[in-house]
Structure formats: structure tokens, C-alpha cells
């Protein structure tokens, strides 16, 4: 009898479905990031500042800027994503809610995925919105800018997903920011190569659907594999 | 092949010999490090055990 009532209790405590739990996580993370705006606006300022350093460091000549723009913007976006990723699990780890997440009866991979989506919505998306301004700074043509936005749209989710694995592996560490960079930056190389190449090729007038397809494929691959890996990593580092 | 030719490596001596030197040097270092480390570990464990033994002995005496 006692056991039966206990079972009942457990059942009641569980929200109706994994899907709803994910939505809850998503909502919660979005709300929290509204409260802690600076955590997410700082990487964006970083992005803008880094990009505006290049004309000062190299040359303000429009030709040069146009040539280096895709690479500069992409490298800056990559670093900004990395910087933001440090916060993906940090506060949840500090206040213990990450452990609650791991202990919850729902598939951790799905919950982690929801967290990454929320994170991308507050970091990747604003980054995308800032990009046209930076593209203008660096004298990119409208057509190149649109391709650049497309590559960022396809590429930054991949970066966030891959980075989540690194963030999960380094979650309890003191100097995690630097370590995260060491672990994850080499893995970002394919995305960087294909994204920058498609923007550059678009500038020359070459068809870039192939590269964009590769970027999409990488994104899908990351979508399939990284939530599970991140969940496994969290289970390891939180024990 | 003359000895002279062997050492000059047909003009490539500047590149070939440092290459081989570096490879052999690094391989030897890699071989030597675990040997040294093993000696160190055994020495350290022996010292620690001797220390623990001494402590146990002292405790026994105190008990008496």
C-alpha cells in the first residue's frame, strides 16, 4: 500500500511529457536570460569590437576590407559564440539546478537540446541581426551579406551544439573558458572553412549551393549527435 | 656513395640531419621518461611505506 502510494506520488511529480519538459526548460532559460542581460550582451559587444579592430589593424581601404571581411566576421562570430558558451551551464551548475536536470526522468539529451536552443536564441540570433551592420563596416556587397547571413544562420547552431559538448565536459572547472577554447576551436574548423569559402565564392560570382549544403549537412549531423554526447558528458562531469 | 657524399647528403645535409637528429632525440627522450618515472614512483612508494611503518610502530609503542 505504501509502495503504491509512493508510485502515485512519483507519477504525479512528473510533468506530462518530455516535450512539455523541454518547452519548460526553453521558457525558463529564456526568462532567466532576460534577467541577466549582460551575460548575453557582452559576447555581442565583443563581436562588434573585434570586427572593428581589423580595419584599424590592417587597413581602411575598402578593397582590402572586402577581401578579409568574410573571414574576419566569421572568426569574430566564432569567438563570440565560444565566449557565450561558457555561460551555457554555468549558473545552472552553480545553483544546483543542472543536477536536477540530470536527475529528471526525461531524456537528458532532449532537455539539453532545449537549453542549447534557448542559448542560440539569445546569443546566435542577435549576432545574426548585428551582422548586416558589420558587413556594411567592411564594405561587403548586399549579395555577399545575404550569403554571409545564410552561412551564419546555418553555421552558428552547429557551433553552439558542438560547443555544448565542450561546455558540458568543462562544467565544474575553474579555468573553463580557456580550456573550452582549446577543446572546441579545432572542431570548428570545417564550419569556418565552408562558411567563409561560400561567402568568398559568392563575391566572385560562383554558385555556392554546394558549400551551403555541406554547412546544412554539418548542422544536421551536429543536431543528431551532439545532444546525446552532451548529455553523456554532463552525466560524467556531474557525478 | 662516398663518405663525403654521405655527410653532405647531396647538398641537403642542412635539412636531412636535423630531421634525423630531432626524431632520434625525441624518441630517446620518450623512451627514457617512463624509465625515470618508474624509478621515481617506486622510490616514492618505498619511502611512503617506510614512513607508514614507522608511524605504526610508534603508535604501537605508545599503546604499550
Amino acid at each position, binding site marked *: 500500500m505504501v509502495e503504491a502510494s509512493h508510485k502515485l506520488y512519483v507519477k504525479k511529480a512528473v510533468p506530462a511529457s518530455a516535450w512539455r519538459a523541454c518547452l519548460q526548460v526553453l521558457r525558463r532559460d529564456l526568462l532567466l536570460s532576460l534577467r541577466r542581460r549582460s551575460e548575453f550582451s557582452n559576447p555581442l559587444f565583443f563581436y562588434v569590437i573585434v570586427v572593428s579592430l581589423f580595419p584599424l589593424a590592417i587597413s581602411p581601404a575598402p578593397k582590402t576590407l572586402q577581401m578579409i571581411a568574410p573571414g574576419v566576421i566569421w572568426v569574430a562570430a566564432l569567438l563570440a559564440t565560444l565566449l557565450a558558451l561558457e555561460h551555457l551551464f554555468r549558473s545552472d551548475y552553480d545553483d544546483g539546478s543542472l543536477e536536477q536536470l540530470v536527475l529528471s526522468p526525461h531524456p537528458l539529451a532532449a532537455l539539453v537540446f532545449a537549453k542549447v536552443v534557448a542559448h542560440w536564441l539569445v546569443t546566435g540570433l542577435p549576432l545574426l541581426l548585428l551582422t548586416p551592420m558589420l558587413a556594411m563596416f567592411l564594405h561587403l556587397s548586399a549579395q555577399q551579406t545575404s550569403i554571409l547571413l545564410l552561412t551564419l544562420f546555418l553555421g552558428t547552431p552547429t557551433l553552439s551544439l558542438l560547443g555544448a559538448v565542450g561546455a558540458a565536459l*568543462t562544467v565544474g572547472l575553474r579555468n573553463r573558458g580557456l580550456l573550452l577554447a*582549446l577543446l572546441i576551436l579545432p*572542431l570548428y574548423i570545417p564550419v569556418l572553412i565552408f562558411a567563409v569559402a561560400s561567402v568568398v565564392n559568392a563575391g566572385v560570382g560562383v554558385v555556392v549551393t554546394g558549400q551551403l549544403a555541406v554547412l546544412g549537412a554539418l548542422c544536421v549531423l551536429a543536431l543528431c549527435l551532439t545532444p546525446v554526447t552532451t548529455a553523456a558528458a554532463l552525466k560524467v562531469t556531474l557525478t | 656513395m662516398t663518405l663525403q657524399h654521405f655527410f653532405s647528403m647531396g647538398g*641537403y645535409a642542412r635539412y636531412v640531419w636535423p*630531421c634525423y637528429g630531432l626524431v632520434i632525440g625525441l624518441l630517446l627522450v*620518450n623512451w627514457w621518461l617512463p624509465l625515470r618515472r618508474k624509478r621515481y614512483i617506486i622510490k616514492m612508494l618505498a619511502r611512503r611505506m617506510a614512513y607508514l611503518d614507522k608511524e605504526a610502530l610508534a603508535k604501537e609503542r605508545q599503546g604499550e
Partner: protein
Amino acid sequence: MWTFIHKLGSPKHCYRIAGYFIPYLGTISIVCFIYGLVGGLILAPADYQQGDGFRIIYVHVPSAFLSLSVYMVMALSATVSLIWRIKMADVITKVSAPLGATFTFLALVTGSLWGKPMWGTYWVWDARLTSELILLFLYVGYMALESALEDRHMAARASNILVLVGVVNIPIIHYSVVWWNTLHQGASISLLNKPTIAPSMLYPLLAMLVAFMAFFFAVMLMRARCEILLREQKSNWVKELVQTT
């Protein structure tokens, strides 16, 4: 057969079996290395195109080959450890990494020393060298994570996951680098661009490959023995071993 496999899981037997193999592997490595040196530096004729500079391949190719194979060994033992929780697999993954990094570094340096007379500069962003450089970064990342986590079990399992993530990414990185390379420059002469290679050139190369592999396994086992001693320092057999030496 099964008892043998079972014994492999026990640190004590691992330690003993490793100690049994090391002298043989060491001998094979030294013999093959000397044959490779003599064959490669003296017996093999100079290349008609690259002169005596081609003799660098006898150390470059084995290093490059091992740099990738060591990562595969690590991926294999990481998989074994994550699935079957065999502690010895963790040890192998951990101790292989510095060796793999060494081979990668050697492949890079020998490659660039070969590049100076052939390409005119020490460094060209050639697809093979670039992939090798990124591989070095992967090794560095692995070792950084492994040493940053203080709890040994957690460090082992977390870095195992990282190795598997890396192994999925290696082909992607490699092909993207190759594609990027063809985009930016035409094919340059590479260290291995010959369709046929004379036997007097080939045999020393094969001997060197064997020597490097035997070297890797010998040193890997030596390092693993040290690691086992440290991990099992509280067990009786280690205490006995320490007392007898």
C-alpha cells in the same frame, strides 16, 4: 582464452604481461630502426627529382602514420572503456596521448624541414601539413582536459568522450581541409607523389614503419606500467613489488 581476456582486466596481470612484451617490442624496434637508417640513408638511391632530400620520408611518413594511428588506438580504447568500463583501457587512452602528440609534432617538423628545399619555405598551407597541425591541436585539447579534471575517474571518462567527439570530426576536418586546399592552390608536389617506388626505397620505409609501431607499443606499455603502479599503490602486490626492488 576467456581467462586470458579476463586477466587483462586485472591491473596486476596487465602489469606483468606488459613487462613481458616490452623487451621484445624494444628489440624489434631497435633492429628495424637500424635497418631503416642504413637502408634509407645509405643503400637507397637518391631520388631523381628530390635528390637526397627525399630521405626525410623515412622518418616523416612513419611519424605521420603513427600520429593518426595513435589517435585511432585512443578512440578504440576510449570506446572499450565507455562500453565495458575496463579500467586498463582508460590507462591506455591516457598514456597514448603524449606519444601521439610527439609523433604529430615530429611529422610537422620533418614535413616543414622537407618543405624548405622543395617548396622554398618552411611552411606551406598544404593539406597534409594543415591536417597534421589540427591533429596536434586535438591532442593538446585532450591532454589539457585530462590534466584539468582532478578526479581520476571523471577525468578518464570525460576525456574519453572528447576522444570520440574528435574521432568523428577527424574525417570531416580532413576532407574540409583538403577541399579548402584545392580551392586556394594547385596541387603541389607532396612527399608521397610517386606512382611506383623502387624496392630498395620501399623496404627501409616499411622497416621504419614497423620500428615506429613497435616503439609506440613498447613506450605505451612502459608508461602504462607507471600509471598502473600509481593507481594501484594501495594494493598488496604493488607493496610487495616495491619492497622487493
